């Protein structure tokens, strides 16, 4: 794995506000008006973020490589 930053996004039209991502990666996601939002768009790589994206029941949380644009989660 290279050292690129990760870009976090939440598809707000899919998000149901379950808060699974907030529970698994509390520093990286927060609930705003009943929907999840990344706290910061660009972050350093961290396993908990992949866990959050992969356990989202709606597949609304996306993690991409910031320079490559490669989707790291959820699996395509």
């Amino acid at each position, binding site marked *: 794995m290279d050292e690129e930053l990760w870009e976090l996004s939440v598809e707000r039209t899919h998000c149901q506000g379950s808060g699974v991502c907030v529970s*698994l990666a509390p520093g990286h996601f927060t609930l705003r008006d009943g929907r999840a939002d990344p706290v910061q768009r660009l972050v350093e790589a961290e396993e908990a973020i992949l866990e959050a994206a992969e*356990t989202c029941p709606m597949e609304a949380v996306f993690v991409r490589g910031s320079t490559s644009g490669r989707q790291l989660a959820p699996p395509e």
Partner: protein
Amino acid sequence: MTTSLSPDLARLADPAVRPDPYGVLRTLREASPYTDPASGIVVVGRRSDCEAVLRNPKVSSDRQGSGITTVPQMPNLMNLDAPDHTRLRRLAGKAFKPRLVQQWRPRIEEIVRELLTDMAAGENTADLVSAFAYPLPVRVICDMLGVPREDHPVFEKWARSIAYTVDPQLVPGRLSIEVVQEVEEARAGFVGYFGRLIAERRHTPRADVLSELISAEEQGDQLTESELIITCILLLVAGHETTANLILNGILGLLRHPGQLRLLRERPELAEAAVEEVLRYDAPAQMITRIAREPFTIGDTPVTPGTPLLVLLAAANRDPDVHRDPDTFDISRGDPGHLGFAAGPHFCLGSVLARLEGSIALNAFAQAFVEPRLDAESLRYRPHVAVRGPDRMRVSFEEIRVDAVRVTGTSERSVASRG
């Protein structure tokens, strides 16, 4: 710990309250948060408090040995905490993602049409519990798991027994030795059954969820044999009782509110909103329990480590602070979300499937049944407290128009599962 209860809390378990627990739930919500003096259980009923507890990392789902559930539990997705819970959920969740679940839509519609056809062939009355709402999710989850049709009846019995394991202990001794024996019997039955099925699928994988669970892998990590079995049981039971009750509580809501039934018939695009309203107004999952792991407060109520918490989802869903006219069944309300699937790390794993099955079933009921009438005398509720739904519900009708139910396509899945 929970050797006795104050009367208000004990009333929740009273069979006489089962047809309409919402008066008791309202009383409990308005008094909450508070510590039940007799049992030490902290009662949580307001929407904001329930959400805060469910999302609080100081709260645990590991209730084993806490005395709040009577039936001994196995470690599973519902009673584990991170990191074990995260690992299991990540692996098991793969099979229930929106993209995968949507592929089952044609198969679900096909099953609905089968059931409607069977009912249409009989007399102009049917018990929608045994003829519609239970067989639908059982057939769907069994097809998904790859369980042959002839094995379904025994699964229904086992699943029904296992559903007792999520009930909080509200009345000491309420769960008889027989119930505990039934649960043990069901558990042993499932373990033996799934053990054999898993061995078969390992040898010859098929296009089913079980084969996907077996091969699901995360960085070299796989579900172990016993995790696979326990996850199968959980998916079957959770995807069965609750979905059936979602459908039944929904049909009951529509029958009791003819204007809403008419609205859904005229506007089938409201089917998904109708499911959301059922999950709010009369949720299958009425309450869940938690244990405090570290000290915290809910409002002014201090919670010490080891304290059991009773989170009244169904009370929170009618909190007037969040929902206008909370006791009104209105499929077009478009309110902020409910807690019908809970919240936080244990948010329902099968929500996408439940919503899909629920919307197809409610819409099918609205479109196909001509002049449906509830036989109010027939209505009986299941004894479970945490999972709420009818045990018997006869509906009479003039006709069932199976063709009124839209079919969106052929199912590749159904062909594969029969292969």
